């Protein structure tokens, strides 16, 4: 029976060949692959910048780069990791997995899918071009931090800021189209019988994330457009001298920025919620509470933005509101962690690489969650704000959180994508080096932050030397161990032990009913879900 289906597929598997296959692709798998490779390449670009930063901070004093260039590195590292690695990484996973998980043949809007991917290389090409020009001695790349606060980025921004603005516009268009596509796919293309409350959690988290994207990317586009007007057309949205308000910038930016952090973590929750039950051989604990928790986090993300701005001099009532609202986020987030632990509890666990990364995620993301809870307390946040304590916090949730989940997802699904098993030994080596290196890198940042080291400084006073040296050592371990990941992925694509359709003993879901590697068009006849 399956052989017949495969032949049938082959007949229709009309793959264009050569570069055209990729340039004009409307296939969710090819586009997903391109997203994932784009994310992977950007991971190394942004990672190289991080290593420049850490190398400069290895010892007190300036040894390698000018402060001006250091600021360009921190800015581009942040922008690339947020917009070029984590977001495209998750969109790539959604492209590959959402149609397969809901029993659809492809995404609902395949041509838009193509366009939303191909905007990205242009956007990042432009951003990186400004760095290349800076290296060639022609002006400065964006140097105002990834949060680009006005007026540092408007009146005082380098000429390349306009390139940056255009680049952000393109990224925004790309994200909005991607989000529309995901929503349209999930709403219209679910297999018969798959009600919303039967969707896999990964699909649910992406469904909610897509709404967040549609809600806030236009706000980001709005804020950069106001910057563009201020810089080039004589308006004064953010210029106090013209009657504008620099704090307005921060309000608008963080109204985008806070939901943005959940855009980067909700799909990670989804990935972990797929992996933990698979390797615990037990159904996810509290499916419906997981869905409701995700929705609550998404709702709360819209009313907490000013907790990034406690030091801007808000009225005390504002500080109290944003403090209380932020504290509430701990509740649904806690529910998720409790549910994962309960899923593991009395399971029958094995610890293949995806499970290792998922467990690593739960541990390290939770540490990042604790520091998040600490910094929502406004009077204490005055001491944490803009220090390395913050840097430690958001790297725990993004690097050892979101990025860990993407790595987990790649190991989890790559046998389905390629038809080959990855090298388990190398996978485990990659996990342990990444986890150990990551903690040597990020944990000491808590200490220097509490001891008083501000973030975004190229040089520091002597009392921070020991922990900074330690963090730099960790950074190089963390960074170079990603080459093992790259090697392992390439090795898996080129060959390896054949994967079964089921791949994992405890795997459950429609994607595992397809052959490995998955056929070019996923489900040409919709499966029925009981």
């Amino acid at each position, binding site marked *: 029976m399956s052989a017949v289906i495969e032949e049938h597929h082959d007949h229709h598997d009309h793959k264009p060949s050569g570069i055209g296959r990729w340039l004009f692709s409307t296939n969710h798998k090819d586009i997903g692959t391109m997203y994932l490779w784009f994310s992977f390449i950007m991971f190394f670009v942004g990672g190289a910048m991080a290593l420049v930063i850490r190398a400069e901070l290895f010892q007190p004093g300036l040894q390698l780069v000018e402060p001006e260039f250091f600021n360009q590195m921190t800015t581009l590292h942040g922008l690339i990791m947020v917009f070029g690695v984590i977001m495209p990484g998750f969109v790539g996973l959604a492209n590959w997995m959402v149609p397969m998980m809901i029993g659809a043949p492809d995404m609902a809007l395949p041509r838009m899918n193509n366009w939303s991917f191909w905007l990205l290389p242009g956007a990042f090409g432009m951003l990186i071009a400004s760095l290349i020009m800076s290296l060639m001695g022609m002006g*400065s790349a964006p140097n105002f931090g990834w949060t680009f606060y006005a007026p540092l980025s408007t009146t005082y921004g380098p000429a390349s800021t306009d390139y940056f603005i255009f680049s952000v516009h393109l990224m925004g268009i790309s994200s909005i189209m991607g989000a529309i596509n995901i929503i349209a796919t999930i709403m219209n293309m679910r297999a018969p019988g798959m009600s919303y409350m039967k969707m896999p959690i990964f699909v649910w988290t992406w469904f909610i994330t897509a709404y967040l994207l549609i809600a806030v990317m236009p706000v980001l586009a709005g804020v950069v457009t106001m910057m563009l007007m201020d810089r080039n057309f004589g308006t004064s949205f953010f210029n106090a001298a013209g009657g504008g308000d620099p704090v307005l910038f921060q309000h608008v930016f963080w109204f985008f920025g806070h939901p943005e952090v959940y855009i980067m973590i909700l799909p990670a929750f989804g990935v972990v919620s797929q992996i933990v039950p698979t390797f615990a051989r037990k159904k996810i604990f509290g499916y419906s509470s997981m869905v409701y928790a995700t929705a609550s986090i998404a709702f709360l993300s819209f009313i907490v933005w000013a907790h990034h701005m406690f030091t801007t001099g808000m009225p005390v009532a504002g500080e109290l509101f944003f403090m209380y609202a932020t504290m509430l986020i701990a509740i649904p987030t806690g529910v998720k962690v409790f549910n994962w632990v309960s899923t593991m509890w009395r*399971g029958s666990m094995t*610890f293949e690489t995806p499970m290792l990364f998922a467990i690593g995620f739960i541990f390290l993301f939770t540490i990042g969650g604790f520091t998040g809870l600490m910094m929502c307390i406004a009077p204490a946040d005055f001491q944490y704000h803009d220090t390395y304590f913050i840097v430690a916090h958001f790297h725990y949730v993004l690097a050892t959180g979101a990025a860990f989940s993407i790595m987990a997802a790649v190991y989890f699904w790559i046998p389905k994508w390629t038809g080959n098993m990855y090298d388990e030994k190398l996978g485990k080596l990659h996990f342990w080096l990444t986890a150990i290196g990551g903690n040597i890198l990020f944990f000491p940042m808590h200490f220097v932050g509490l001891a008083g080291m501000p973030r975004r400084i190229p040089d520091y006073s002597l009392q921070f030397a020991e922990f900074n040296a330690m963090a730099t050592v960790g950074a190089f371990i963390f960074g170079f161990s990603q080459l093992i990941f790259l090697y392992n992925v390439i090795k898996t694509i080129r060959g390896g032990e054949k994967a079964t359709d089921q791949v994992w003993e405890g795997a459950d879901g429609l994607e595992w009913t397809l052959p490995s590697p998955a056929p070019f068009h996923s489900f040409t006849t919709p499966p029925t879900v009981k």
Partner: protein
Amino acid sequence: MRAAKHVAGLLGLMFTSEQALAAYQMNLPPGVTSFSQGAYDIHTMVMWICVVIGAIVFGAMIYSIIYHRKSKGAVSAEFHDNTAIEIIWTVIPFLILIAMAIPATKVLLAMEDTSNSDMSIKVTGYQWKWHYDYLGEDISFFSNISTPDAANLSTNASVKKDDTYLLDVDNRLVIPEDTKVRLLFTSNDVIHAWWVQAFGVKKDAIPGFINESWVNVPDPGVYRGKCAELCGKNHGFMPIVVEVKTKEDYAAWVSGQKTAAAEAAASAEKTWTRADLMSHGEKVYATACGACHQANGEGLPNVFPGLKGSAIATGDIAKHIDVVVNGVSGTAMAAYGPQMNDADLAAVITYERNAWGNDTGDVVQPSDIKAAR
């Protein structure tokens, strides 16, 4: 050597009131004001709550990882839902949060109460220095990093790296002990943030806004801080030093400042020799101009223009004075007229017109500046 340094540091700590700069400092220091101690107490409480919750959650996870593994013959259970337990672990965290929110609110309300202050100081952020203005006292001055060479890759190595590396300034903010000092924050250019950890005060200095906070330091001493908001190239090089004096010493300091101000005013009236202008101008240049235009006058290509051989520094004197006094709008060149007195401006312009081979031979007197204002 290293140990000797640590011992020296420890002795320094014992015999002076300098803030401790201990290596391997891991936790938030409690600081010296009610403000910072409030922050420290709430920090400590929330941190321990997190540690306890973490121990429970991670403990359960680790137990499960050890005992519920397939290789030990564990067979997975069937349960996957329990409404009662879901309600419990929603309600308990909520109660814990309320227990945190109450003390946090108390501390915050106390911090935001700037009423009944004894004196006020306006703090203005500049790229990349602080300006302090004692309201009603006629005392105001800039506070620059005392090692401007630290901010450049080529000159950094020549700077001595001791315990106050990047933490020392030319003019300290001086306040009296045991006095409620209201601080007003604003900025002349981009957003800065004034942060002295020992006081628990971190407030953004925002152009067009005036933020307020307060300190009341019970004991004399020297307290150090830094700019905490990215403000451009030299963000890492704009330290804060606050010297808290006894009330008597503070009064003496105030009268000393007033005498010095009178002397400076007198110096603006006299005619200076070229040599005096050059030597004074070099000092002014190093603190005010060198950060962008560089000590060698060459600037940073495409970022900050050079002055060596530039059309302005070797051309029309009136134009040169105009640029320095009024700034160039839309660029990073600030107006130095309001920042410096006539003597400083005359000296620095004379210096710029004669240093690095500019050799125009021009001499600008304070009276020229006064006339041009």
